[in-house]
């Protein structure tokens, strides 16, 4: 077995990206994700890659657009306010059908907000982070190991479906250290563009030009690109939903939570089980596509759902949609950088059990 090392979540993302063949990082510092940029600034020059601290988040995402056009694995990272600035670029990436990795280590908002952990960009990320009709793939890791593993998954899914992919985590996940087995270096960065027939790699006078663009002035053509894109989204929704089920076999209450709150919830569920409360958890791993099917299935047997989130009830709505409002969906939440304690979650579970 490969060696376990101790790393921060942010560092694990950076090292995993490099091992997956990413050689182009463009970013701008912002707490609590700056370790990604710091790590890249040390590693990239040593391996012939690009680390570039742009003049702004907007510049960085547009550099990603350029690098992604050439078919290379490329990424940027930021935290909530910085992601707002990247929204325009995300829309252009989506409109040009370009894969790229975007990392959002969320902090409390809105506005400049605070720098402590949050999950309040949920709507922003899952509903379409920019103008126009589009989605990005959104993955929600809950361990440092998943942060490394999902970095690879984000590159692979993004390329398969030709769309930007995001790792969406909270400040705690970025800052904490855990043992992690990093992915093997199995991808030759130079070989990746050749697998993308659309990439602007140079015609060599042998083929027509590849054009990367999101401008379509003829409405019928633009309509066609939108419809084709949503066919891909339908395929993605059908095939790529991921989630974890925890003690759901006999559960009468289903906790739904992601990231750090899923971990706090696990502690609370263990404590509630000791009191004889039949409670389990479904932890969505893909937030777009949202794992509706397992929730709908759970709705057939549980009495109620309880979302535990660091926002005012954003994923709560997705759970209601997934189960067609067929059961009660309660919520246990804290915002602004506060995190519910396992006792608070336990109390919310007890209330559901009454």
């Amino acid at each position, binding site marked *: 077995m490969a060696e376990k090392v*101790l790393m921060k979540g942010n560092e694990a993302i950076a090292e995993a990206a490099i091992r997956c063949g990413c050689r182009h990082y463009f970013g701008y510092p912002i707490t609590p994700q700056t370790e990604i940029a710091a790590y890249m600034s040390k590693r990239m020059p040593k391996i012939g890659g690009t680390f570039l601290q742009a003049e702004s988040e907007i510049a960085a995402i547009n550099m990603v657009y350029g690098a992604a056009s050439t078919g290379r694995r490329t990424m940027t990272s930021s935290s909530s306010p910085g992601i707002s600035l990247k929204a325009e670029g995300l829309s252009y990436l989506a409109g040009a059908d370009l894969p790229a990795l975007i990392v959002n280590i969320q902090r409390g908002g809105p506005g400049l907000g605070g720098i402590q952990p949050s999950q309040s960009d949920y709507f922003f990320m899952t509903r379409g982070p920019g103008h126009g009709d589009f989605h990005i793939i959104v993955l929600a890791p809950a361990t440092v190991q998943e942060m490394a593993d999902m970095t690879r998954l984000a590159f692979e899914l993004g390329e398969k479906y030709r769309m930007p992919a995001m790792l969406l985590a909270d400040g705690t996940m970025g800052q*904490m*250290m855990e*043992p992690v087995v990093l992915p093997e270096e199995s991808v030759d960065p130079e070989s990746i563009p050749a697998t993308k027939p659309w990439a602007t790699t140079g015609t060599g006078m042998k083929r027509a030009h590849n054009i990367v663009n999101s401008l379509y002035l003829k409405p019928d053509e633009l309509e066609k690109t939108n419809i084709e894109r949503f066919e891909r989204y339908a395929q993605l929704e059908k095939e790529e939903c991921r989630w974890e089920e925890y003690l759901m076999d006999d559960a009468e209450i289903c906790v739904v939570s992601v990231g750090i709150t899923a*971990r706090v919830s696990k502690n609370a569920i263990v404590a509630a089980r000791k009191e004889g409360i039949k409670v389990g958890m479904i932890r969505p791993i893909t937030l777009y596509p949202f794992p509706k099917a397992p929730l709908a299935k759970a709705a057939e047997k549980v009495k109620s759902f309880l979302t535990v989130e660091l926002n005012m009830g954003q994923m709560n709505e997705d759970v209601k949609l997934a189960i067609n409002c067929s059961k009660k969906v309660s919520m246990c939440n804290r915002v602004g950088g506060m995190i519910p304690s*396992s006792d608070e979650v336990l109390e919310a579970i007890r209330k559901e059990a009454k």
Partner: protein
Amino acid sequence: MTYEVIMAGFGGQGLLFSGKVLAHAALIEGKELSWLPSYGPEMRGGTCNCSVIVSDDPVGSPIIARPNVLMVMNEPSLDKFESAVSAGGTVFVDSSLISRKVERTDIEAVYIPATQMAKEMNAVSLANMIILGAIVKKTGCVAPEVVEKSLRETISARKAALLDLNLKAVEMGIRFIEENGK
């Protein structure tokens, strides 16, 4: 057994580092662990803490609500965390920096004049490592001899010259527990 350790004090006392050395030692022992820093606009002189969980079982939440091991290097941290310690837990107090005693009677207090001891070896910034030595000796959360290996692997290149002093500080903490019969 699960050790939930909070190390708290002022920024600049090396609390995040001593937590990292403990976490890395747990990694070497093949245990489950997590390390979570307080983060923010923190600086030398501000408050600072880290939470380290060392366990035989997978770690759920890295956030510690009720530590069973508490290390405090300033009075505000003792005030803040004393009530959180689980019954039967142990508090390690740097008695050179904190004049008051632990008030609770259902937890054990270990008073170490760590900063004074570190001053005497002309390395005031190593009080954290003295207390770390005391913690591992007293609780057995990791084997004391593994801490040495962890330190060797954790210390940054910039501070490599201070490795021997760090090792000596850990050793002093271990000896303090041996000599004080705890």
